[in-house]
């Protein structure tokens, strides 16, 4: 029995699109990365599923148009995250000023709760908790945990100083923990 063919890598699929305008190859990339892009955007839009999916569609259309600019130096998922972040930022700017580096003044330490986290945290719980974060805190959390960027890569992608990203992460962790502990005593 012949061994099943290994699925093509992202780089092979991208080359197929660039060389032969292979829509099927791009379709595989969309299927492979849709979950991550849509999840990131759902968290960034405070759980607005319809808006997140509209933005995710825009992200993949932009990726299709600009695939020739992909340099193969970073992972395709990282490149997509950057497009997703810029798309969310453009949309958010239409509605209100996005303040990525605003400090809300509450020291992160004071938000640390001594209580234990609940054993089970549902997606809805987490979405609600993410909604209490500032734009900058949500952006930093999605970059580091959902797009799996290092703090340095996140700082570059978000256009923020490294120290600000670290502060956002620290503060966001504390807020999320406090909120989730309060929700589920």
């Amino acid at each position, binding site marked *: 029995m012949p061994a099943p063919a290994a699925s093509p890598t992202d780089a092979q699929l991208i080359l197929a*699109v660039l060389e032969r*305008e292979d*829509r099927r190859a*791009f*379709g595989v990339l*969309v*299927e492979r990365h*849709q*979950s*991550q892009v*849509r*999840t990131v955007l759902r968290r960034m839009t405070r759980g607005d599923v319809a808006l997140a*999916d509209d933005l*995710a*569609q825009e992200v*993949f*259309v932009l990726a*299709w*148009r600009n*695939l*020739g600019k992909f340099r193969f130096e970073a992972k395709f998922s990282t490149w997509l995250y950057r497009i997703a972040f810029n798309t969310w930022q453009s949309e958010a700017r239409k509605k209100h000023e996005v303040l990525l580096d605003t400090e809300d003044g509450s020291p992160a330490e004071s938000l640390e709760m001594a209580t*234990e*986290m609940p054993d089970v*945290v549902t*997606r809805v719980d*987490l979405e609600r908790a993410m909604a209490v974060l500032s734009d900058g805190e949500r952006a930093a*959390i999605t970059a580091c*945990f*959902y797009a*799996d960027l290092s703090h340095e890569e996140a700082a570059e992608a978000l256009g923020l100083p490294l120290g600000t990203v670290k502060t956002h992460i620290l503060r966001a*962790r504390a807020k*999320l*923990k406090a909120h*989730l502990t309060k929700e589920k005593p």
Partner: protein
Amino acid sequence: MNDIDRVLREDARSTLPDDGFSARVMAALPARPRPRPWLHPALILGSAGLGSLLAIAFAPAGASVLQGFADLAQLHLHTPGALTAIAFGGALLASAVVLAIDSD
């Protein structure tokens, strides 16, 4: 790893069902823009050429480029012809540098 990190990592690893999303994206894709690698160099060289022609056309009387190069060869750097030749050569050099950087 603390608890909140674990919760976030688990959420990030969870998979959203496609629910027709990929099909909607594929239906919305426009035709890919045709690559035109010649356009950028043509614009740079065209601009440099136009600039050089204007420099020659509006140079003071007697300031021909050939005379300018002759002046430069004799280290007469401040004649109108020499300045025209320097401007002409500078425009071409700038174009070459921009194209070399762009091709990296």
